[in-house]
């Protein structure tokens, strides 16, 4: 239970970081924290104490009740890959923004309004 609460606290921290910070890099860090909080949550719900690898083999009979659920791990890996792609793109955008504006402060990067 504590682990779930900590996980949600991490999620809250990430969203706080995205909303409140003015530095582009800190916003990106906040995004990454948010993504990872969800990934952690996903892994947590599939965690089983003393669980075994979910392999059905003829010579090693294992009861399904003691196996861990393999699906969330695969899904989290996919989610991490997606997160990587998004983060790489956003970092590249932040670097191009720095090149154009000479600052990472979002208060000074605001040509668009209205």
């Amino acid at each position: 239970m504590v682990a779930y609460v900590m996980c949600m606290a991490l999620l809250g921290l990430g969203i706080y970081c995205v909303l409140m910070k003015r530095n582009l890099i800190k916003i990106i860090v906040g995004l990454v924290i948010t993504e990872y909080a969800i990934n952690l949550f996903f892994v947590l719900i599939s965690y089983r104490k003393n669980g075994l690898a979910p392999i059905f083999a003829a010579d090693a009979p294992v009861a399904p009740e003691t196996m861990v659920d393999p699906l969330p791990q695969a899904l989290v890996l996919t989610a991490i890959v997606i997160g990587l792609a998004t983060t790489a793109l956003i970092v590249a955008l932040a670097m191009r923004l720095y090149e154009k504006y000479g600052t990472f402060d979002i208060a000074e990067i605001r040509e668009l309004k209205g």
Partner: protein
Amino acid sequence: MTTASAVIPLIVAVPLAGAFIIALLNQKIPRLPDLLGVLATCVGLLLSLWSIYLVQVQPTSVYSVGNWPPPLGIAMVMDGLSAFMLVTVNAIAFAVALYSVDYMERFTAKWQFHSLFLLMLAGMNNVIITGDLFNLFVFLEIAAVASYALVAFGTERHALEAAFKYAVMGTIGSTFILLAIVLLYANTSTLNMADIGRALAQSPAPHLTLFVSGLFIAGFGLKAAVVPFHAWLPDAHPSAPAPISAMLSGVLIKALGVYALCRVLFNVLGLTSQISSILMFLGALSMVIGVFLAIGQWDLKRLLAYHSISQIGYVLLGIGLGTPLGIVGGLFHLFNHSVFKSLLFLNSGAVEYATGTRDLQKMGGLAARMPVTASTNFVAALSIAGVPPLNGFWSKLIIIVAAIQAERYGYAFWAALASVLTLASFMKVMKYAYWGGLGDAWRDVREVPGFMKASMVVLAVVCVLGGVLLLPGLREVFLGAGVEALHQGTHYAAGVLSEVK
């Protein structure tokens, strides 16, 4: 599985293959990006028209990827709503690909544009066709990441800023969607949408369903730019190159936002009266706020972007009513908005191509020099404002009648009011940009090249003839199956699962 439905995965595979072949061979064959871009979208259009036929033969067909039967493997589900959305998305994509052949000449890395464009199309097609919730999320992200990159394509200051904002907001939205999927998986131990529906019907979890619905509304609402979550759209859509603005406003917000939201809320979680009233309220709010913000804009593309928010409101209001007539109106308006909004963005791109400005105050009298652009823009403007007999009139009329039938007189009034304000705002566009005396600066402005003209004219013809789709005979084929798919609600699960066995 019948042999007819064997082509279903090709609708994703063809654009995907096109995107990577362009990336591989662009240096060897110079005209390849244009050719493949148009060819792949054309094949996509043909396949989606085929899917309309497929739905007539068999209302729900399920394709199991890798021959793993669902719910174990990933399933692709083709029903009336999917076929309807596929036609909408691929028709607009074809027109836009045709348009970009000439328009994108000014940009240096044309192959990157076509590659990203096809990647985005593949993402949208798979979001529409998939029957698996996590698969939906993955391809939603593929389409979204491609669209972030496309918004920043011009790499000017404002484009980068808009893309950054869009990417951050979009990622937060995706996070909400992923959290909702995780919660559903934790509760039902399955990711297949039909199977989730079945599991929730067997052991209802009302609190979880409500919370997950809220997360989905926030997540997909961010992608659809519904009003409390709309802040990124007026920056991102105008900053992109015009074909991409047309694609984003025309179909992306609908495929990733409205379609996914409706599919999940109606067919998986089940529409309750609470959710229905939230949808209608958000719809009405977007409708009114969007149009009020639009009317004061002087930047042509920004004005159009605010109207996208407003029109998405109509779609949500119609679908949120939950009555068959309301859903007909909502879906029909979704199709119509795709057509006229992409046409309007392509027109604004044509104006920018010819004059180099987007500021309405600097334009004037362009109708004399650019007759095709001006007349197609006039058709689209009347259509979006809901002037009979153009297509926008019919869909708005159906939505308002459906609201009155459901005794939601307030919403009907706001819908009518927003329509009048839309008309006012587009008369402003016509007056300042196209009519009146020709500005001195624009004496030698020339009409845009052939491919751009062709795609604008095609879309304008669809605008004029769109109302035909409501005639009996055509209506059942195109709209009826989609409405049926949404209105059946959670019977979706039974339909899909019986198809598997």
